C-alpha cells in the first residue's frame, strides 16, 4: 500500500533522508520512529507530495507519487504535525471545502460530513468558527477532515502532541477501528514510544536519515535484548539530545499551538 524505494533527500551536502526503503501492507498500522531531525517529517512530506525527493521512488496505493501526483493525493488523508484548519471558517465549512477539493460527489457530501463530525463529537459545533475551538477540538476536526474523501491510507504526523489523555484515547480507539473495520492503512509518527508499542503492527526506527531497524514491537525488543520498546529505542539511537532545525513557520506554529493548548 505504501512503498518507499531507495529514497534520498538532500539539502545541499546534508542528506536528511539517506537511502531508505520499506513497504507497508494494506490495513497495516505502521509507526515511523526516530529522534528529532532523524528524517521522519521529511519522509512524510515526500510521501504526501509536499517535497520532491532527490532520488528514489515512492508509491501510494500503487500510484507513483512523483508521476501520478493527483491519483496519489486522492489515496491518502493526513493529519499534519501542526494545525492546518482555517480558523476563520466554521467546522462545517472546513469539511465542505476539503470535500470539494477532493471531488467528493455532492449527493454524499452532506451525509459524509455529518457522520464524521458526529463521530468526533463536533456536529453540534459545526457552525462555530474554528478560532473558538480548543487544541483538542481542532485535532478532532482535522482527523474528521482527513477522512471525508475515504482515503486508503491515513498519515498521522505526531497526532497526539499536546492532547489530554481522554482525547488521545478517543483518537487511538478510532484509528484502530478504521484499520480493523475499513482495512485502512495507518502510517504514523510519534515521540511517545508506548503509543507505538500498543498501536502499531510494525515499527521502523530511523536516525540520521537511515533506517536502523524494522519489525513488530516484540521483535524489536527481542532483537535488542531489551525489556521495553523504550529501552530498545534508546539502545539504537543513543541518549544524546538532538536539536531540530525548524523552519520559522514551524517554530511560529509551535508557539501558536502551545498558546491554544493552555
Amino acid at each position, binding site marked *: 500500500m505504501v512503498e518507499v524505494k531507495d529514497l534520498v533527500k538532500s539539502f545541499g551536502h546534508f542528506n536528511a533522508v539517506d537511502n531508505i526503503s520499506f513497504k507497508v501492507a494494506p490495513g497495516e498500522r505502521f509507526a515511523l520512529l526516530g529522534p528529532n531531525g532523524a528524517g521522519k517529517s521529511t519522509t512524510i512530506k515526500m510521501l504526501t507530495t*509536499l517535497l520532491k525527493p532527490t532520488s528514489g521512488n515512492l508509491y501510494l496505493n500503487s500510484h507513483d507519487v512523483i508521476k501520478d501526483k493527483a491519483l496519489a493525493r486522492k489515496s491518502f488523508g493526513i493529519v499534519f504535525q501542526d494545525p492546518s484548519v482555517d480558523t*476563520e*471558517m466554521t467546522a462545517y*465549512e472546513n469539511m465542505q471545502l476539503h470535500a*470539494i477539493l477532493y*471531488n467528493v460527489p455532492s449527493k454524499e457530501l452532506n451525509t459524509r460530513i455529518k457522520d464524521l463530525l458526529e463521530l468526533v463529537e463536533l456536529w453540534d459545533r459545526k457552525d462555530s468558527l474554528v478560532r473558538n475551538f480548543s487544541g483538542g477540538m481542532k485535532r478532532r476536526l482535522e482527523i474528521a477532515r482527513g477522512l471525508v474523501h475515504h482515503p486508503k491510507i491515513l498519515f498521522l504526523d505526531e497526532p497526539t502532541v499536546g492532547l489530554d489523555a481522554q482525547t488521545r484515547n478517543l483518537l487511538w480507539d478510532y484509528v484502530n477501528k478504521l484499520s480493523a473495520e475499513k482495512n485502512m492503512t495507518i502510517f504514523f509518527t510519534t515521540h511517545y514510544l508506548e503509543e507505538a508499542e500498543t498501536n502499531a503492527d510494525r515499527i521502523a526506527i530511523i536516525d540520521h536519515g537511515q533506517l536502523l531497524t524494522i519489525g513488530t514491537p516484540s521483535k524489536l525488543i527481542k532483537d535488542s535484548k531489551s525489556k521495553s520498546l523504550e529501552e530498545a529505542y534508546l539502545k539504537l539511537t543513543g541518549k544524546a539530545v538532538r536539536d531540530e532545525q525548524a523552519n*520559522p513557520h514551524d517554530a511560529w506554529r509551535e508557539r501558536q499551538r502551545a498558546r491554544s493548548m493552555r
Partner: protein
Amino acid sequence: MKAIYYLWLRQIKRFFRSKSRIVGSVGQPLLFLLALGYGLGSIYKRAGDGNYLNFLVPGIMAQTVLFAAMFYGAMIIFDRQFGFLKETMVAPTSRLKIMIGGALGGATTATMQGLLVLAISYVLGFRAAHPWMIPIALFIMFGLAIAIASFSSGIGSFVQDMQGFQAINQFLVFPLYFLSGALYPLTNVPTWLRYVAEVNPISYTVDAMRWSLIGVSKFGIAKDLIALAITIVICIIFGLNRFNHIEA
C-alpha cells in the same frame, strides 16, 4: 469549476467576517480624500485646473483596489503560517485552480472596496461625468484587481513572512502608486517623472479610471486598455509560476 467557486467563496466570506478589514479598507482612502481633496483643492483651483476632488477620486479608487488586491498575497502568507496552505497543497486539485479561485476572490473583494470608496466620494460631493459609464470603471478596477491579486500571490509564494511582504509593499507598490499620476496631473511634471509614469503600469489604470469617471485621459483609452491587458497577462504568468513552485 466547483473548486474555484468554493475557494473564491472562502475569500468573500473571510472578508465579510472581518469587520476591521472592511473599516480599515476605507479608512486610508477616506483620509486621502479628506486631507488631499480638501487640503489641496483650493490651490488646484487657483492653478486653473478646476475641481481637485473630481480629479482625485478615480486615483484614490485605483489606490484602494491596488492595496486591497496586494492584501491577497498577505493572505497566502497567513495561510502558510496558520498551516492551511498545506491542506490545499496536498489536495488533488491543480495549483492552477487553487490560485485562480483565491485570486478571483481577492480581486472581487478589492473591487468591492473600490466601489465602497466611490460611494463615499459621492457623499463628499464627487459626481461622475457620465453615471452610465460607472460599470466601465468597475470593469477597469476588476482588471487591475486581477493583475495585482495574481502578482501578490506570486509574492506571497516566495516571501516567507509579513516583514518581507511589507518591504515589497514599501519599496515597490508605494512608489508605483505615488509615481502614477493618481494624485497629480502628469501634464507639467519634470521630464524624468513623466518617463517614469509612462513605464509604470499603474499610470494607465489610473488614466483609464479617469477617462471612465470624469471624461479626462492623458494617454488615450486604447493605450490604457492595452497596457492593462499586458499587465494582467504578465502578472498572471508570474503569479502562477511562483505559486507552482511552493514547497512546504
